[in-house]
């Protein structure tokens, strides 16, 4: 429970979203272009984070189907901004320790002139800790 509470607080802090403002109108899911690919839909993200039921979201591929098109952010009548919440859950997964698919030492070997500069900067920032 306490771990879930910490997780929820962390997600709310990084996203700046207040899920209590949601009036459950469903406009986010009504507007979402990736709705059909998602196991958990935008309105469910909001409800599940609010309930602290975050584990299933962390393990769901739904996280990566969100296009961050911000249609839900634009149209939400309560300014809940679900896409920011999805992004925060995604960051929660990426930031977990010992989940790295790479180490900092692996990076130089993988360098390629095709890789965008920005991706390299991000990779070093993440793995150089």
């Amino acid at each position, binding site marked *: 429970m306490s771990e879930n509470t910490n997780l929820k607080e962390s997600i709310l802090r990084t996203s700046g979203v207040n899920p209590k*403002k949601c*009036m*459950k*109108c*469903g*406009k*986010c*899911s*009504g*507007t*979402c272009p990736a*709705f*059909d690919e998602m196991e958990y*839909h935008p*309105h*469910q993200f909001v409800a599940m984070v609010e309930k602290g039921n975050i584990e299933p979201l962390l393990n769901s591929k739904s996280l990566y189907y969100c296009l961050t098109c911000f*249609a839900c952010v634009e*149209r939400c*009548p*309560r*300014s809940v901004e679900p896409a920011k919440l999805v992004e925060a859950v995604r960051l929660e997964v990426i930031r977990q320790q010992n989940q790295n698919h790479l180490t900092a030492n692996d990076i130089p070997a993988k360098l390629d002139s095709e890789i965008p500069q920005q991706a390299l900067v991000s990779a070093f920032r993440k793995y150089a800790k």
Partner: protein
Amino acid sequence: MEVNELQKIGVFVCWCGSNIAGTVDVAKVAETLKNEPGVVFSTDYQYMCSEAGQLIIKNAIKDNGLTGIVVCSCSPRMHEATFRKTAEAAGLNPYMVEIANVREQCSWIHKDMEEGTEKAIILGRSAVAKLNLNTPLIAGENPVTKRALVIGGGIAGIQTALDIADAGFEVDIVEKKQTIGGKMAQLDKTFPTLDCAACILTPKMVDASANDKITLYTYSEVDNVSGFVGNFTVDIRKKARYINTDVCTGCGACTEKCPSRKTPNEFNMGLDTRSAIFIPFAQAIPNIPSIDKNACLHFKTGKCGICQKTCGVNAIDFEQEDEIVTREYGAIVAATGFNPIKVDKFDEFQYSQSPDVVTSLELERIMNAAGPTKGKLVRPSDHKHPTDMVFIQCVGSRGESCREKGYCSKICCMYTAKHAMLIRDKYPDVNVHVFYIDVRTPGKNFDEFYRRAVEEYGVDYIKGMVGKVSTRSNGRLLVQGSDLLANEQLLLETDMVVLATAIEPDESVKDLATMLTASIDTNNFLTEAHAKLRPVESPTAGVFLSGVCQGPKDIPETVAQAGAAASKVIGLLCKDKLIANPCVAKSEELLCSGCSVCANVCPYGAITYEEKEVNDHGVRETRRLAQVNSAVCQGCGACTVACPSGAMDLQGFSTRQIMAEVDAICK
């Protein structure tokens, strides 16, 4: 501390059951205050406001020859009037009563008995200090002009005026449009009984017009309001119709012959066009046309004048100008109504892109037999019969972004159920879907009405909101929305989309509120004097509220509120004189420098200047001095703070009295 040797003060500490006695040691408060200067009597009692409590006060006044009393009790808003009457009955001047609020400002906000008691003593001491400097005040009287003004000629204004007239008082209606009737005149049917709006409204319009106590000022606006309760003076601007209303017979020949016919018809929500000289609708009252200067060829080019040639009674007058009429009133009722919000910011619903996306008020006109389609339900784009319709609820209501209103518009759930039901009844081949967030139908026979739409008429209610509407190549609309209960995203192809648009107060209310010194809330609804106990009075005396200008409401509620506002007006107009508040500002002549600062800050226009001869310590000279009209002054005290020479003082709340209170608190 200043002590008036002649003052004999009694202190009465109320327990208010356990409300005060629970956190304040009332006996100790009474005992301690006995030692305050001027206090000759002090006691406590369970309920001071009760008959027995008031008797204690009366007896103490008589037995001890008290010159003033301090009651340590609840807020003066609750019982100041009670204790003033008690004191008056015992022969005291009612303004020799001071209330120390030891409930709302003390016992209710403290948990600790010691702290609560200490603060109660301080509050009591401060009231005693003030009372030591009180002087008896005599309230003046003002006459009442026995005539009422109703601003707005919709159902709210009409009903208010009819009820006031029924009690025998003269009443004027000022309506800014060409006809009375308001929004209700535009509606097709009314929920929950489905009677035709015109059938129940037009008899009331006729009544208002035929009633010899009611004067209609249509196509007129309020330009200026001055004065105060019982004595308002109002300038009404009668806008030029370019028609001599005394001779016009309303035959309508001019409207038929007018060659300028391309102006969007406001009455039909711009779904068709009207001529430049026009009568809004067949049952308009008065049934007199007016010329739209911006559309009229005569005004634009100097040519034409066909209406003038057509008119058999020579009623067209292109030279006519606005006329200002000044009238006196005892009471004013605001009944300025509402408008649907503009939905052009909701791009996701394609309102500005597709003619087949309409607002609910536009649908009312489409469904109405006198509307642009003669009541036939057709798609506006190609006039074909629709087979599918989607209604979207809460468009612009209950949101918090800048394009939305934060409140629930209250009427949309019911009118959408009405539209859906009427369409299914008349055209059973049309599939009707309603996207809703919540269905809110409190009201007599309201929820039953909504259930009938679902159960008997087969309207498809979908719990969810529409995310976007797009136009397909086949000319139909594609609605993408969520069905939350099925956890699905729906794609519905439809012919028409109807937006249940939020309502907002009419724009004119902002200027009007300033003129009336009535307050409006953040949504521009006029504020009532008390949300529960004084719902039809504005905080400004003599100004009353009727209809949606106070908050969203349907027709039954509007009519009920209109009657309530009328009864308050009648109660006021019945009086021959009004007791004035004696706690008004007064200027000390010898200190006044005539600088005008007080007149500039006075929100009520109560201060004027006059040249007056004064004798300043033997020097006789004529000076420019501030004069307070005590009938207009509301005792707000703004002038006393602004006056740089300390000449202005508020009777009953003088600077000396307030400083004495502060000193007593800081002692």
